[in-house]
């Protein structure tokens, strides 16, 4: 199987991660598209036989960071906005919204680590390589992300989403 076919196979995973990373579908698919185009243009930098998935996520991370940098002004504004009062949840649909919102409130670098660990189920080492940060930083970001998420979710006093296995 060549790189193009493997890239196509990985698109659903890139989309899942992007959706969780940026929230809305259109922006997420834009990110995926930019990632694929950049990956294609930089394919000569990919070393055959190494983990294509990790490489693609690295490309996506870099594309995302650049896009965020370009809109830094608005991001900062949002960070400084007081939190809006939120209704108590009444069911799973609202809980899902709560979880999405809680994820969105994590600092971007913590969100990336949490999503690679939980959604992609990447090893901590692989996350460190993908994001090009030391393993200690991976662990501290993961720790802060989870704790912040826990505090946000506790604050909302929601019932838990029942996960059907």
């Amino acid at each position, binding site marked *: 199987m060549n790189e193009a076919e493997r890239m196509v196979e990985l698109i659903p995973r890139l989309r899942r991660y992007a959706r969780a990373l940026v929230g809305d579908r259109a922006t997420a698919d834009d990110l*995926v*598209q930019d990632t694929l185009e950049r990956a294609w243009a930089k394919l000569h930098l990919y070393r055959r036989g190494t983990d294509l998935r990790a490489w693609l996520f690295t490309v996506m991370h870099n594309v995302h960071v650049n896009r965020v940098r370009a809109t830094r002004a608005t991001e900062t504004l949002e960070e400084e906005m007081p939190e809006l009062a939120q209704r108590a949840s009444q069911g799973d649909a609202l809980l899902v919204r709560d979880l999405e919102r809680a994820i969105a409130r994590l600092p971007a670098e913590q969100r990336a680590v949490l999503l690679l*660990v939980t*959604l992609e189920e990447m090893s901590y080492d692989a996350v460190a390589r993908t994001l090009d940060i030391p393993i200690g930083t991976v662990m501290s970001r993961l*720790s802060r992300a989870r704790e912040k998420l*826990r505090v946000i*979710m506790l604050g909302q006093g929601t019932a838990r989403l029942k*996960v059907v296995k």
Partner: protein
Amino acid sequence: MSEARQPSDGELHAYADGRVDPDRKAAIELWLAEHPDEAERIEAYRRFGDELRALYDPVLEEPVPSHLMRSAGVARRWWPAAKAAVWLVVGLAIGALAGWQMHDWRTPVPVAIDPAAAMARRAALAHATYSPEVRHPVEVGADQEQHLVTWLSKRLGTKVRAPRLDEAGMSLVGGRLLPGENGPVAQFMYQTPAGRRITLYVRAEARGNRETAFRYSRENNVGVFYWIDRDCGYALASADLTKEELLRIATLVYKQLES
């Protein structure tokens, strides 16, 4: 009975992620049993994983949009510029004719350095996109020509006109606004009674751009005559006419816009 060693924070996360080996797992569980607050915290961490997967795993099952499939397989350097036009093609699903006319465009081309040649390429692409359209070839029809011209002039920031091509057996179908390299551009469409079409692509030029002679290029099956004159760049494109016919109409357009 020995006091269980306190696990590191990293170990607790690895435990929440199901990544510790069985021996260590038993020891961690022993310690958690003695520290209910910590146990609750770690259980919450584990649960977030399940909830996140429940929330986002359905994305894996969604059909992948076709433009993403193409992005993964084909390098198209003109893509960012033509994105809007191609989106419309995809969105309108204009069918076999458009598909046939477009299929050769997906191969990489060298980046055009000459801005006028780049304009010709965009004009050809816009022609291939809209001229096969049966129901929606234009945004504003010839029945509202005055409105069309006023609107496009306003958006381009320069006076544009739709030349009369009756002399060449061509009547105005209408026009539309398109995204260009440096701002909006206009496209006028004309056709013969038999339905052969040409499109005139007009963009505002920065003042001081030198005027150019007629030049001809062929992009796949679309022939284009293009030139820059005073405030505007023009590209006349057609997949239906011969080079000679197109030149004759280009000359006609040039004369009218000159006067």
